[in-house]
């Protein structure tokens, strides 16, 4: 307990569960932002540590293996009739995700202008780009598993850790995108229905946006460390 709490004050505080709720809701505010936004940021902070651990363990196994690492530039090349273009699918996925981040930023902006139709439309477009991304990822996974024979425990090209790292990292990111698409759709429909008209508070759009931008942010690191290394 802080030294600014006197003995009589301590004595008047309720004990047990009642005390717990009382202490945790004691109106001490450090951050002058809406609580929903702060909580989303704290969640994203914890998620940062999860992805940080994945990428760090990937770095560790890649650095410590004696077996050559499969060349991502070749593994993820795609041919449209002619010569294979290196990393082309991944590049397209990157552009899809950045485009969706842009439409999301615009949605937040229109939310604060209380333009319900535009906000909802932009959020649904964002969700559609997200779904496109997942579709492309499903295609990529299928190609790697079926055509190239890459498994979490081994692959024909080199270090077996390649599959484990790849499926773990991109899989976890893909789950985040999928959840984001659902989250965006739900909030967009609520905006469209006018659920936030009464309060005039469109903070929820910004909070949803934070989550979506984070998904894009994680992809920036995956793109750099997994695909470009």
């Amino acid at each position: 307990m802080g030294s600014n709490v006197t003995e009589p004050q301590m004595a008047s505080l309720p004990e047990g569960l009642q005390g717990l709720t009382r202490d945790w809701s004691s109106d001490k505010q450090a951050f002058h932002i809406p609580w929903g936004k702060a909580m989303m940021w704290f969640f994203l902070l914890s998620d940062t540590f999860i992805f940080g651990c994945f990428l760090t363990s990937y770095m560790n196994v890649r650095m410590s293996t004696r077996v050559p690492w499969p060349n991502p530039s070749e593994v993820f090349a795609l041919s449209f009739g002619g010569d294979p273009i290196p990393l082309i699918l991944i590049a397209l996925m990157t552009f899809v995700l950045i485009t969706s981040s842009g439409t999301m930023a615009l949605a937040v902006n229109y939310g604060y202008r209380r333009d319900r139709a535009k906000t909802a439309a932009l959020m649904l477009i964002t969700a559609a780009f997200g779904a496109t991304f997942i579709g492309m990822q499903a295609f990529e996974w299928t190609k790697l598993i079926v055509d190239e024979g890459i498994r979490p425990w081994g692959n024909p090209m080199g270090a077996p850790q390649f599959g484990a790292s790849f499926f773990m990292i991109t899989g976890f990111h893909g789950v985040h995108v999928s959840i984001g698409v659902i989250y965006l759709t739900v909030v967009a429909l609520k905006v469209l229905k006018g659920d936030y008209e009464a309060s005039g508070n469109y903070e929820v759009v910004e909070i949803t946006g934070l989550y979506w931008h984070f998904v894009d942010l994680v992809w920036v690191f995956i793109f750099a460390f997994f695909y470009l290394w």
Partner: protein
Amino acid sequence: MTTEGHQEHPLSVYLWIWGLLFVLSIFSYLVDYVGFEGYLRWSLIIAFMLAKAGLIIAIFMHMIWERLAFICAILGPPLLLSFFIGFMAIEGDTTLMTRLDFFGETDFVAQHYTETVH
């Protein structure tokens, strides 16, 4: 500049950043496409990555318009990860050396130490 927690900024800001992110992504893709190697490749990859991440956090996630107390609370802890990453890099290197030594590939060890850092 803004009322408490209310983040409303001109549309042009977002459009500019959006465009920049596109350009930076094209650049980072070109690093692989052109086939730069070694330190040049790595410094370019990291530079474009940090630029993109910074723009997304600062502008799209509105971090530069938040109060310093909040910025520190959110961006401070992930910075500590860099120590962890550093230690794991050292550990990975040691594991590799131990393995090469065990499998009798020590010629490669000498080569590895003189030619490349990582």
